[in-house]
């Protein structure tokens, strides 16, 4: 029997409610995805940036990162630190803002995709997980 590959997903969102929502969505989605596949999933969810950075491991595969983290700190400010630690991870930015300038800047900084917290935000996140796995 082949050993299943464990995919580690990290959610960094300081709004507790959205954090829970997203985590729940991912949980349910990965559960369905892991059936009959060669993958298992592990989800780490943080509402505090400090805690998140402390526990950030090298083997994280997918990171969902809120854009506005704490006052005056955005996801782009810590992106390089994250990428330093885990080089191969996919970073997806989540934001309510649709400011195109921010989006362009995010792509320039090397994020892998941009998710809008909206009607399709959760579904989009799931799709990105799927795509990230397919890309491996």
């Amino acid at each position: 029997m082949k050993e299943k590959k464990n995919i580690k997903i990290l959610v960094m969102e300081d709004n507790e409610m959205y954090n829970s929502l997203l985590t729940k969505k991912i949980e349910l989605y990965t559960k369905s995805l892991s059936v009959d596949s060669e993958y298992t999933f592990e989800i780490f969810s943080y509402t505090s940036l400090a805690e998140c950075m402390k526990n950030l491991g090298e083997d994280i595969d997918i990171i969902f990162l809120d854009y506005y983290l704490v006052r005056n700190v955005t996801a782009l400010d810590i992106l390089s630190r994250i990428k330093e630690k885990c080089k191969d991870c996919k970073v997806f930015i989540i934001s309510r803002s649709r400011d195109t300038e921010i989006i362009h800047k995010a792509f320039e900084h090397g994020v892998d995709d941009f998710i809008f917290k909206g009607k399709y935000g959760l579904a989009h996140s799931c799709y990105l997980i799927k795509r990230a796995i397919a890309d491996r």
Partner: protein
Amino acid sequence: MARKGLVFELRIIFFILIAVVIVAGIGVLAYRSLSAIVSNIKEELKPDQKSALIKQVQSDLSDAENGVQTYTITQESEYLEPFYQAASSIDNKVNHLYSLSAQDTAELAVLDSLNYFIEQKFIILRDELSLQNNNSIELELEDISLKLQKTEQYNELPANNIPATTTKAPKRKSNIISRLFSKKKPVTVQETIEPPTVATPPVHSVKSIRKEVDRLQELQAKQSYALMEKQLELSQKDKAVMDRIRLCFAQLEELEKKAMAVKTALAEKQAREVNRWIMTFCIAVSLLLFVLGIVIIRYTRKINAYSKALKKAKTEAERLSKVKESFISTMSHEIRTPMNAIFGFSEQLLETPLNDAQKEQVEIIKKSSDHLVGIINDILDYSKLGAGKLELNIERFKPRDIVNEVIRMMKPLAGKKNIDLNTDIAPDLPQVLLGDPMRLKQILINLVSNAVKFTDKGEVSLKCLPILENDTIVLVQFMIKDTGIGIPSSKITSIFNEFEQAEGDITRRYGGTGLGLTITQKLVTLQGGTIEVDSEEGKGTMIKFTILYKIAPVIDEPSPEKNEKYSVPTDLAILVADDEEYNRMLMTAILNKWGVIHKEVSNGEEAVRELENRKYDVVLMDVQMPVMNGLQATRYIREHPMKSSNQKIPILGVMASVSEEIRRQCMEAGMNDCLNKPFKEKELSEKISDLLNKDFMEENKTIMDEENKTNENSPGYDLSEIYKVSDNSKDFVKEMIRLFIKTTSEGLVALKRGMKNNSWEYVAYQAHKISAPCKHIAAEKLYQLLKKIEERVRNDYSTLQVGGLMEEAEAEINRLIQLLEVEYAKIQS
């Protein structure tokens, strides 16, 4: 046409010139004739010198005669003055008359006779005068007779008195008569006075004296008789002369009158002549103008006829071009629809497990269909270019990316033929340009693929350099050079012609429609550039073209990668409406692969019915369908209430035609975007994710209106999404409610603190934080309020303007928390 116009103009100018010359002629003639007539009239108005002179001569003559007569009567020499004056002046006057009528021989003849008779007259007058002077003897005689009488008075007074008186009596009587008739017959009267002229005063003796006297008297009588005779003669002569003179005058007057009549006749004749000329000229001018009018009218009619014919031809041509366009677009639709299936399924088939032979075959199918689509696109482009309907899509782009992409695309082909494919992009080429990148790519693909196609060994190189540049524009030159078969020099000029390739068998050997270069050339021209070819048969070809671009600033990158990076969320409900079964199957294959829920319907009516009953996120709507086509269905959906928010659902039109006209119709009907068949999987995913994102943005704009409508009877939140996300896990929903209450009340406290400290950044941050979860319980009103607060404080850098909004938000939060607490309790039980 132009030459005809010129001839016409010349003709008109010629006629006008003639008319002008004639009118000028009339003017000059009329002026001259009129001034001649006027001067004639002036001359005639002057008092006639001749007749005046004649009158003067007449009066001079009568003056002279009067003078002589008066003198005869009075014997006072002063009365002779007028006679002398007349004598001296009459000559001058006659001479003057001569000079006046120098040319008129008839007049001269009359004048000659007049002159002669005047001279005669004066001779007669002089004779009379001299007769008068002889009368001095008579005076003496009278003296003597007086003396005699005196002496006789002493002697025989009565006896001698009687004869004396008798002799005298007739004298006196004649004097009286002469006085009476002096005017009429002056000469006769004078003559009657004259008889007692000769007398000698014998003083010797009375008898002798008497004798003497008698003798004298007798003598005198004789003399006086002679005198009288002479006088009579003179007077007869005078009368004759006077008659002649009068005749002369009459003649002169007659002549004068005749001259006058002649002059008048002349003037009349002149005037008539002028009138005739003017009439003639006027008629000529009128005729000319008439001819001119006819010429102009004929010309205008002709022009009108031409322009009508032209208009007709133009509308006909336009109609034909429309027919052509619609034919081509219909044909391309007909071809594209099955192509879509072939292309799509071969794409899908390649992703399934196949053995090598099958894989190769499917790849060939895919490539062939790819090629066919390319040809159809060529034909469409060509027809659009011909109709001038191809529009450039100007946007910012990176020329380097385009060139590299083209090279990347061509690499496999070149690699297969073992040809080197090199690029050389000048480092000073601006990073970002404004232009149509797709058309540039099309040109480059065309030229580079041609180069690769016609090259069997060696290399193909693509050079790109700016050749002219200022701050705002740059002329970019692209040069494609190959070491291929080349083009014979006789064919170089015709390679840009339609359906023309250098040699007849090229189509067979190398494929292609022969439209590529024509389209390329037209595209280059359309973008304001030029293209030139340099080739040597057997050695290679070099094609250079230039395009003028505006330079765009490098800031604000429009990331073309954006679309590539967007992705389609799963968990969507998509409605597919298409009448072609294989298209639906293709869609199904793709959507299944994505893991997207979808439903298929086969016409617009079914699509509408479906949307009335179930909530969907996106509709993929084929434009051409039976029963109700895509456009009608879209209009119906936009105009009628549907289930949930389906009325505003993003609709992606799927069409086989690439006609701009149909695209415009789609957008007008209310579709959000269009996708051309055949499409690639990537294109579909891009369009859908774009639509979803766009839809989200638009939703935010219109949400307030909807909120105001629904607020009255809805609680202002909706937990269905959370239920859905959690797979109806009550615990999870409860947890969510708890978290919502917790985070929003915390957020509210933080907001209030921020307001108190007037820290706008903090307020914005907190508002942003609280707003996200609102979306998930569909608490739209609160969401909008928070968004407004965030936007306003960010714009104002102050919290001063949001007091009212804050109060509203607080009230809404409190209301929601109350309601959610009730909900929480319900779930618990």
